[in-house]
């Protein structure tokens, strides 16, 4: 069972809360190891470019974000469409990232294989702007998602998130049929 901290529960249920959850997305390309992971946050606590003026290869671009476990997460507005209850296929979620600045588009174009996605929800109050936040514990971590499809236009990047659907894998994996074993027929 997932355990959520008392501070997060208080933040959820109180009538007025000075705290909120920040969703942190880590995209790790699997088939191109040289490709660096992409780190996106759906909110910001500070400017990232104050420390690194050439962040993301764009000089003097104003980039907001958070620092979590020593890593800078770039702020881009993100919208998630949660999976439906259709039992005939694996749950599929849709992630829409509003990237009018093209900070993400160039990286996405170079991805050639499936991308592993980790989603972490962190309390904003735990993120200290002056440290690397190495010891911060996420409230919830979602792993095991893969992006199966990317589409993008001038305003947004849309990604389909899917888990590996073992239930619909063929079983047994191989059968003695002419297509697999032509020599025995």
């Amino acid at each position, binding site marked *: 069972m997932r355990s959520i901290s008392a501070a997060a529960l208080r933040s959820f249920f109180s*009538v007025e*809360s000075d705290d909120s959850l920040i969703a942190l997305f880590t995209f790790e390309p699997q088939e191109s190891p040289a490709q660096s992971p992409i780190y996106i946050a759906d*909110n*910001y*606590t500070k*400017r990232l470019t104050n420390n690194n003026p050439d962040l993301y290869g764009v000089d*003097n671009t104003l980039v*907001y974000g958070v620092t979590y476990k020593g890593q800078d997460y770039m702020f881009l507005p993100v919208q998630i469409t949660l999976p439906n209850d259709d039992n005939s296929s694996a749950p599929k979620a849709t992630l829409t990232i509003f990237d009018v600045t093209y900070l993400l588009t160039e990286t996405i174009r170079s991805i050639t294989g499936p991308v592993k996605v980790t989603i972490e929800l962190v309390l904003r109050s735990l993120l200290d702007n002056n440290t690397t936040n190495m010891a911060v514990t996420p409230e919830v971590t979602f792993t095991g998602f893969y992006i199966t499809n990317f589409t993008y236009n001038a305003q947004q990047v849309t990604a389909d998130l899917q888990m590996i659907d073992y239930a619909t894998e063929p079983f047994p994996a191989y059968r003695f049929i002419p297509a697999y074993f032509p020599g025995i027929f």
Partner: protein
Amino acid sequence: MPVPVWPPSLPQYPERNYSETLGVNVIRTPMDSGPAKVRYRSNRPQTLNVQYTLSKTQVDTLETFLLTTIKGVLRFSYPHPRLSSGTTYVMREVRVVPQQDGQLFTLQYVAPDYYKIGLQLEILP
């Protein structure tokens, strides 16, 4: 590339009718009954409405600064009218908020060679 600075040849303080808005981004969720739930989300830009009376030369300087130096979109360092005192300027990074159809400022004739300029600026968090 360094952030451009508000030209020193222009007035460092706006005239009267200066106004300022402050706030934060909040999520306000109405409930079926009872008070709405309110959550803090992040800092938001603060808006400044400033007016200057400029000579024709200063208008040219402002026009060059807005159209050429910052091209209407780049942020620049600007002396905050409320936080600055005397010649001790507290600088903030601001952008011009274009009005309808991308208008950067309004210009009104006051007297020969003098014009009144109105600008809306936003302080970036």
